[in-house]
């Protein structure tokens, strides 16, 4: 029961998608079911993401309640989650039952602060806190990439030299000053990099990787549908 039922559910929900692909959604039952199931999966998938957030809250609140080492940082995480999430899930009008109760407590002129629209608390926190930090996190990678490059880009053998040369050429090609430098050697060099490296070798390799990965993903999907692959269920 604990294993067979999930395997049967996985098989049936996958089968609907496979069969539904070949059916007209407007004229056939299966096609119609496929559309409906896609909406169902979006809803259940939404809950899985919420599950992740609940898990974060549980883990952090446990640390805070037990006052473990550096619990103040976990408290900051908890406050941030609630500061962002609570205003976002509040009703933006008094039309619904919950909305009428909510706006009997708070003035309705405050409604612009709630939800996820422009000028909401959610929007403000995203624009002035979350978004700059996200950009900084990725920007910081520039330093770590540079340090990784220093270690990796040593021309120890032919392959490493090829990697080094291509990376340097592409980095030069991407900036006006570098492009001007490349033109010293040949006016056609930037064009060659574009044609033969980016649109040639790079496209070919990406294509090979995509074909291989897609075949792998398709075979893994088949294993899941047939119940051979069950690791997603965990232990027990």
């Amino acid at each position: 029961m604990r294993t067979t039922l999930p395997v049967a559910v996985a098989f049936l929900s996958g089968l609907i998608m496979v069969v539904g692909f070949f059916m007209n959604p407007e004229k056939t039952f299966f096609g119609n079911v496929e559309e409906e199931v896609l909406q169902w999966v979006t809803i259940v998938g939404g809950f899985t993401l919420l599950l992740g957030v609940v898990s974060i809250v549980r883990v952090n609140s446990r640390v805070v309640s037990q006052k473990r080492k550096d619990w103040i940082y976990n408290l900051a995480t908890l406050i941030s989650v609630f500061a962002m999430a609570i205003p976002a899930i509040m009703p933006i009008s008094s039309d619904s039952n919950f909305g009428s109760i909510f706006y009997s407590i708070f003035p309705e002129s405050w409604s612009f602060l709630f939800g996820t629209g422009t000028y909401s608390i959610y929007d403000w926190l995203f624009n002035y806190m979350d978004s700059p930090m996200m950009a900084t996190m990725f920007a910081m990678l520039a330093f770590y990439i540079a340090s990784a490059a220093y270690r990796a880009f040593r021309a120890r053998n032919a392959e490493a030299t090829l990697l080094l040369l291509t990376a340097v050429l592409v980095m030069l090609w991407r900036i006006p000053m570098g492009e001007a430098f490349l033109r010293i050697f040949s006016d056609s060099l930037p064009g060659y990099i574009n044609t033969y490296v980016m649109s040639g070798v790079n496209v070919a390799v990406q294509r090979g990787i995509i074909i291989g990965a897609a075949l792998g993903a398709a075979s893994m999907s088949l294993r899941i549908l047939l119940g051979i692959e069950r690791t997603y269920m965990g232990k027990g």
Partner: protein
Amino acid sequence: MTFFGHFEIWLSAFLVLSLFSFLYKDNPFYKMAEHIFAGLSAGYYVGLIWQAVIIQQLVNPMFDQGHWWLVFPGILGALMFARFFSKWSWISRISLAFVIGNTAGVFLISQLHGFVLPQVVSTMISLNPAQGFAATLSALVIVIGVISTLIYFYFSKEHTGILGGTAKVGIWFIMISFGAHFGYTVMGRISLLIGQVQFLLFDWGGSIKQIF
């Protein structure tokens, strides 16, 4: 600029500098900013899912349009939370299996129909020298690159003889592509860094100038 405008810029600048401080070494400012970032990102997804999925796809169709059958995915979703109760955690497998099975069904078709076939079709290009040297060379690069890359990732037979030689060509192609990707990624990160430095120099710097 208003007081609130200055506050917004100073808050962003403080968080940006706190994160950059990690480049020196780990410190309480970085840790605090990092935890706030993790919390805000989790909260961001709550807002996004609540509005785009729970309200728009579940609550509104169920109560406004009478789509009562959406109660079933609602129950399946709620069953996910059984994971937190060790005795009933196996029930969450049903919801998980529904999502995984469905995704597998979509993938089975989409990967073959959307990736494998179009990429194979795009690789079947003319190698006729009559189309000109440059076009033939480009076509050759694509065909040889795709075949040799695929052979490099084919591990069912030992890479010796012709297979080994082709796999070696595959490594060269892969190295060039990874180098190009690396260069591209570095430039992308550098442009983000420039953006953040510009924010600190012009927005925050401008605010400092106005205040002092």
